[in-house]
């Protein structure tokens, strides 16, 4: 099989990326407080926050453990998780649950743990595996690897699309194109792909989207049309955010949040709670933290010791970045509603753990990145 060249002589404590880690922890802490506020009016609000805290703790531990592992090992072990996640995706295709609550049967029930979405974990394994092929392509071993890259990409993307999970499908497709782009795909191909996407979009609209999803997109353009579902949600969230004005209504005192007029305020629309209760100042701080996080990730990708690390971080950053931008965008009515949660903030255990796994991988790359001469001489 493959052999990997390990990075040696790294002091974990010294090289650890405290900047990234603290940024993520800050965002998670804000998220936990806001979630507490969002679920105040729920009967089971406390247990929701408790579960979220537990998921956060698990996530932090996993991130630290993963950061200890040299990311080059993922070239080998990643394929194992890839296979597992594909099997799970196939399983939920037939045995999945959750359509009533979340709009698609992409969930499975795990005893004790609760509900879990295999596509969350598949995102990571997908990035881990295709990064391997991209590195080889970039190193001049095209041909067979291009085919492998396409096949290994197509399987999870296809399965996710078949699940009818629009948001998740968009994440996969976005990550796929960003990685292709970073890999150096000529702009003319990118343009070609974009043009090709138009008939695909029409095809998707007609054959693949269910009514609920179609409404979400339709009402995105015309929210006033619909007072009960998607458009209704957006109007209410914009109104709640707007009423927060500059300083917000103070934590736990957002009238609309607390009175339940904000839809799915604990997950998809948690940014609305931030907007209403913390005002423009709070929202801006959260967005700036997110920007700083993405900036840091791109920096790590750019300074990765090798191409593989760079592709890994790029893919994971694209994944998180898409989630951040799309989620906040739908809260303020500039993107359609897709049901993508706000990473590290929205309620949801499997998303939290997945995101921390991603952070663990990025940390691993960061720890082993190239240092500037000045730094390495220390």
């Amino acid at each position, binding site marked *: 099989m493959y052999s990997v060249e390990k990075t040696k002589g790294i002091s974990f404590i010294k090289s650890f990326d405290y900047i990234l880690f603290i940024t993520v922890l800050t965002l998670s802490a804000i998220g936990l407080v806001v979630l507490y506020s969002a679920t105040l009016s729920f009967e089971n609000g406390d247990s929701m926050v408790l579960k979220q805290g537990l998921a956060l703790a698990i996530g932090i531990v996993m991130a630290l453990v993963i950061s200890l592992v040299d990311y080059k090992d993922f070239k080998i072990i990643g394929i194992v998780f890839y296979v597992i996640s594909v099997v799970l995706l196939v399983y939920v295709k037939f045995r999945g649950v959750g359509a009533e609550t979340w709009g698609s049967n992409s969930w499975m029930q795990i005893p004790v743990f609760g509900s879990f979405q295999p596509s969350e974990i598949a995102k990571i394994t997908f990035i881990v595996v295709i990064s391997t092929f991209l590195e080889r392509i970039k190193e001049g071993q095209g041909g067979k690897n291009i085919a492998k890259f396409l096949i290994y990409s197509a399987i999870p993307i296809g399965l996710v699309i078949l699940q009818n999970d629009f948001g998740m499908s968009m994440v996969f497709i976005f990550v796929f194109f960003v990685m292709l782009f970073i890999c150096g795909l000529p702009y003319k191909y990118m343009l070609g792909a974009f043009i090709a996407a138009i008939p695909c979009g029409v095809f998707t609209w007609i054959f693949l989207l269910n009514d609920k999803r179609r409404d979400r997109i339709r009402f995105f353009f015309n929210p006033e049309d619909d007072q009960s579902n998607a458009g209704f*949600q957006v109007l209410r969230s914009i*109104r709640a*955010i*707007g009423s927060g004005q500059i300083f917000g209504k103070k934590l736990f005192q957002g009238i609309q949040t607390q*009175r339940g007029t904000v*839809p799915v305020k604990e997950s998809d629309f948690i940014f609305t709670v931030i907007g209403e209760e913390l005002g423009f100042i709070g929202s801006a701080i959260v967005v700036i933290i997110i920007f700083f996080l993405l900036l840091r990730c791109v920096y790590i990708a*750019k300074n990765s010791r090798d191409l593989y690390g760079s592709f890994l971080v790029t893919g994971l950053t694209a994944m998180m970045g898409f989630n951040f931008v799309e989620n906040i965008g739908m809260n*303020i009515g500039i993107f359609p509603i897709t049901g993508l949660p706000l990473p590290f903030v929205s309620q949801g255990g499997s998303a939290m753990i997945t995101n921390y796994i991603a952070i663990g991988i990025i940390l691993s790359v960061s720890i082993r990145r190239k240092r500037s001469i000045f730094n390495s001489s220390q």
Partner: protein
Amino acid sequence: MAGLGLTMKKRLIFLLVTFSVLIAALVVRVGWIQIVQGDFYQKKAFSQQTRGRDISPKRGTIFDRNGKPLAVSASVEKITINPQEVRESKLDQETIADNLGEILGMNPEGILKKIKKKSMYEIIKRKIDDEVGNNIRKWAKEHDVGGIYIDEDSKRYYPNRNLAAHILGFTGDDNQGLDGIEAVMDKYLKGVPGKILSETDARGRGLPLNEEKHIGVQDGANIVLTIDETIQYFAQRALEKAVTDNMVLNGATAIVTDPRNGDILAMVSKPDFDPNDPFGCPTDTDKAEWEGMSSEEKKAMFSVVWRNKAVVDTYEPGSTFKAITAAAGLEEGIVTPQTRVNDFPVIVQGNTIKCWRGYRPHGEESFAEGVYNSCNPVFVRLAQVMGVSKFYKYMKAFGFYDRTGIELPGEAQSQIHAQPKEIDMAVAAFGQRFQISPIQLISSYGAIANGGTLMKPRVIKEITDSDGNIIERFEPQPVRNVISKQTSDTLCEILEGVVSVDTATGGNAYVPGYRVAGKTGTSETTETKSKGRYIASFSAFAPADNPVICVLVVLDYPDPSSPFGHGGGKIAAPVVRDIIENSLEYLGVERRYTEKDKEELEDQVTVPDVRGKSTAEARQILSATGVNLKYSIEGEGYDNNTIVVEQSPKPGISLTKKSVVILYTYKPQQGIKVKMPDIKNKTIDEAVETLSKVGLNVKGKGIGVVVEQQFEPGTELEKGTVVEVELRFLDTE
């Protein structure tokens, strides 16, 4: 191991720039919503959060000047539903509609329609009794039907029914004021509606375990009127009687004010309605007739019965206006009460104006007598001396050109010649050919009575909150000084003569002990020639030397076939008399009897108790009263020692002299019956004589000749019965 190529680094930077742009866009958009549009969304959010079920505030009470409630709000309930929630109940919609309809006495189809609606709030029925509300509660609980809400509602209730209906007005289905004070003061009375907030999910369904919050409900303020419930009642009773007695066809109005401050103490307009049910059968309409009316006829009827004639109608004031002409003449020094005048016909621009008694003019007389006799030519000549500009200057000063500004809806604008010619002035001098509202006329009389200051009529005294604290006080408002105190005093004296001088026109308003000053009026209308429509009125105040009340009664179109005619002195003056007598007595104004009054009073005697006495003793006692109290003894074989067992009339009743007391020496099963004779048109002396012959007694009211007797001629009466009769001067104008 290959390092990152330049392309890859460039593209990573490109990716970073893309994220930066997107993030910047998010911040800008968030800033736009929160900073630029923040206010807008803040307001929107507020209106959203208060979108719940309404709770009606308790509408303020309307009190009379003494704190007696005239309009109150009773707490009732209303049924509303959230159709979406109702539809989720286990019971099917048809059954729910049927059951609700049955409990509420409504058509189930209408309810079913509301249940099927897409909204989140539908009113099913308002103003239901608590009992019905409880039945709904029980039913909803039994059948586990959600989404049905029973909340407080308030219902307007007028305890005195049609009393002061036109002043109070009425409210509509939503408790909004539609007429009268209810409409004018609606913004104070209505209060601020509150909301019942309950948490809902995105679809407006109530979430379980939610507490309901009642917020923002603020009860309405109370209005204290200047109206005195008791005086209002006196005025209404007197006017109702006059309308019936005189077969008044076009309605009538009576206003009572306090001339010192312009307070409206009473204001009655007939026909009227019951504000508890303003859209129901009016007070004076026959139920059966009402049922038979078409909706157009009913509508026409409403416009009649809701009409506050005292304020929204105009009429030609007729001779009552002569007081104003007299005031102007006295103020200008053109006449004094003693000035010699005559009432021979006067020709103005080719029109001959004669005295009402043109067939036998009063001839030369003093100006005061001219007023007593209401001679038109006297006033025409007075106006001619004054000249057009001065005459109309006084009309303006007395406020006839302007609305009085009374706080009641729809006050009429008077119609007075814009460019009056001499003939216009000549007829205006005795109150014809211009239109003013009754409230304007009584205000001008107030100015005459109070020493010369025109007061703005005041109907609202103050606004109080629910604890009775005064929020706003409405002070009496003088408009301007119109005449001097001296003129006022002189005119008061003359007008008192109109009532007290034997031959004068206003004698029917005379109240023994109270000095009433006033002026009669019999106005012609455009329908006088064709239909015989006159407007009879009388305007007066009392006591003449220190007036505390001012009364105007206007009777529009007494039926020409009425036996009492259409003269203001005949039919309106007695109404004023009743109102003044009752009101002054109620207000505790002491009677000061004139010599003439005393003489008449001395004719009265109180029947002593002679039961249980011997006939001889009884005879002695009755003679000892010092008056000519007659008696007759009924029984067989009595002598001086026989005991009087029963007497008629009973002791304590006051009788005129020449009355007969019947003494019974046995216990009569039933008194001896006699037949009531006809005493119509007899003087009081003649009546007493006629009645005493058959053994009946008289109690008279008023002076003049008998116009009404308590019992029809031929009625069988017990001997000794006291017959009440009403007297009136019938030869006056």
